[in-house]
């Protein structure tokens, strides 16, 4: 058992920047899927996929929310691809302090793409389903099981709060709120 490398299905969404028409149907679908109850509200600002659009520069980049990071980058990258200039954060998927993307608009808590995990599972993540022009395509491939821990949303959210306020303050606040209940 121990000498066998564990395999698992790796889910990926491939992005083709040239095919994106900038319609943001992916954002609408994502925000609907992740609302509670499901599909009960729409709000692209809550979407875990955003299309970064800069019309005049012909920049259309669909990007999925990744791991939260508490710090801004120390240096920034700008990209020139096929003579096209991309903004410094165009390809970054991290909710971070320097921009508004991938944060709950009211609480500011970070969002992360979960590939539409649900029971029963969807055939494909919803953003891929509504992307008829195939800017987004879904792929499953077999890969080595990484030691990636599966973290739930509350872990991620709490960690962001801890970074912001410190663990003690959070503990006190929770205790105070529990008392009020």
């Amino acid at each position: 058992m121990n000498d066998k490398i564990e395999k698992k299905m790796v889910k990926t969404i491939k992005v083709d920047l040239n095919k994106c028409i900038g319609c943001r149907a992916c954002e609408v679908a994502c925000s609907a899927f992740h609302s509670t109850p499901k599909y009960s509200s729409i709000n692209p600002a809550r979407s875990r996929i955003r299309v970064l659009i800069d019309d005049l520069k012909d920049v259309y980049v669909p990007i999925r929310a990744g791991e939260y990071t508490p710090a801004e980058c120390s240096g920034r990258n700008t990209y020139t691809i096929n003579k096209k200039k991309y903004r410094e954060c165009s390809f970054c998927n991290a909710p971070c302090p320097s921009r508004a993307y991938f944060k709950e608009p009211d609480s500011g808590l970070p969002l992360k793409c979960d590939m539409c995990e649900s029971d029963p599972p969807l055939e494909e993540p919803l953003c891929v389903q509504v992307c008829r022009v195939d800017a987004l395509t879904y792929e499953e491939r077999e890969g080595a099981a990484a030691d990636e821990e599966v973290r739930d949303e509350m872990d991620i959210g709490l960690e962001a709060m801890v970074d912001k306020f410190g663990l003690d303050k959070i503990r006190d606040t929770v205790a105070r709120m529990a008392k009020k209940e």
Partner: protein
Amino acid sequence: MRFTETGFNLEIDLSRGNIERVETDPKLTDLHLGGQGTAAKILWDRVAPEVDPFSPDNHLIFSTGLLHATPVPGANRTSVDTFSPQTNLYSHSIFGGFWGPELKHAGYDKIVIRGKSSDLVYLWINNDKVEIRDARHLRGKGALETGALIQEELKEPEAQVAAIGLAGENRVYMSTIEHANSSASRGVGVIMGDKGLKAIAVRGTKDIKIAKPPELFETCIRMNKEIYDNPDCGCFFRHEDDEEWHVNNFAWGNARERRKGFWNKEREEQWTAITRKYTVRWTGCYNCPKDCHLAISYPGRLKYQLKCYSKLTYAMAAFEELEFTYDILGVTQEYGLDGFSMPQVLAFAIELYEAGILTDKDLPKFPLDSSGRFFYLVEKVVRRDGVGDALANGVYWAARQIGNGAEEFDHNTIKKFEQVPLKLNMINYPYFLMYATSEKMNITQTEGSYPQGPIADRAEREAFVKNWDAAPERFKKWFLEWEPRQHPSIEAACNIADWNEIMHYVDDAVGICAFLSSFRGQFGGRPPYHLYNLPEIISYATGMNIDDDDLWKIAARNRNLVRALNIRRGMRRIDEKPPEDHWKHRDPEMETKLLNSYYQFKGWNNDGIPTKKTLDELSLEYVKEDFVQRGILSENEGPASKNGYAEKSLELKQEDVCHE
């Protein structure tokens, strides 16, 4: 809780700098749905008929549609409503893109603007924070350029901006409001400029609630696929390189000449190569899988997006090639000029010059070539420089200001507004009615549900009718009976004109794009949205309980309210006529009969005024009372005109030609 709506309008008084968030009456949603419908109600309540369009008391209303910010694909068209200085009548235009849904997420169904700013300002709406900001540094900036500059200065790359260019600032009547890949025209840009409002930037991050979430979402996923797969919707003309149909059937120059034989294989290859050369991307509007817009990058011009028929309007008005279109659109886009009316004004000016009515004194150093003349005239018009000041008021007014016989060259306006350059052979009954009576001023905003031409092959025709889910039963019968070169009966013509325009009133209230609905039944007969699936979609989204009859009635109410706005401003039967030369072969007797019958069919009296009975049936009693008080309707009015429908079909001798 109100579903799909925010329940609030933003009221802006630019004279006083006052900003208010005002709760709206949910009953108005039941009566008018939203968009154009509720905007017409506000105009009725607040803008008295005596108000000059350039008065601070005129209102400029930006309305989201009822279905904006829901998952319904293609619900993204913002309605802009006001009164136009060109027609002195109600002015309405719609633009797509992303702006309307963003406004809803910011917490507002409408922005209602009144007053006038003493200096150029822009509006910045960031959820609950609303500011009127100095825009003097944006004076003269291009329309899309303004959007980018505002995003930059606010550090809000996600703000959606609708802006005017220099044309709007200088109150050019053909000016537009530009946003991303879309624009609003037909007299709304000039009012935005008159009010001193350069732009409206919006950012919204609030939730919009859905009444029946799983039902609506399941439907929308299905519609998303259906729309993408349906070749008969969207702007399919933009995806075709073969322009034969348009270049052969539309008139060139100042709506003068049809050029048979212009189109050939060689030209098609040249034009295709030119388009490929400058195309950078196909783009779509908010939450719609159709890529109707072509992003164009022309050397020396800011990137812009080709909209609809503008690919041909400038080239054809100037008797030029496609290269010219892509070049001049780079200029007119940033000035904020309408691609329908502006080319006609320019072609009209060139005719006046060639006729010696305008001279070298009016147009010093006027270039010899048509392309050069167009660029020259654009600059004169947007700056209202010299004779450009008259031309900036559109063909009708320019002709009268210039005088000296110029009136003769104004041959393609209805209600003082430039029409699509179509000059056809034989009068077409439903089109006669639509041209005469529409108050959306452009045939493209009125036609679209009933096919433009019959299907010659009987079996094909039957197959078409069998799959025609969008059509009420009576139209199936008429279409089955329709043989080539035959007029529909008066009864059918009335019904066709009515259905066509009613569907536009549905779309413009809920905010759905006409290219997925009201405009897209006429070729192929398979619009994704129609009378029989929209009620369910609206019900799922909003929780309202409506069926197709209810939807029709609401649209008819909105339509009659719009007519009431114009009747109160003096519009009458005498104004309801297509240009004299629109068809070569006219039939005055039949035209009178058609108009009489249509008025009666619509529940209007012989002068085109909705009768008391009609107004009562549509819960527009307040309009009735106003009309009686003003003497527009008398206390004891007689019955409407009594001509009845003539149940006869007429054989046509010449091929009749389709429109679009």
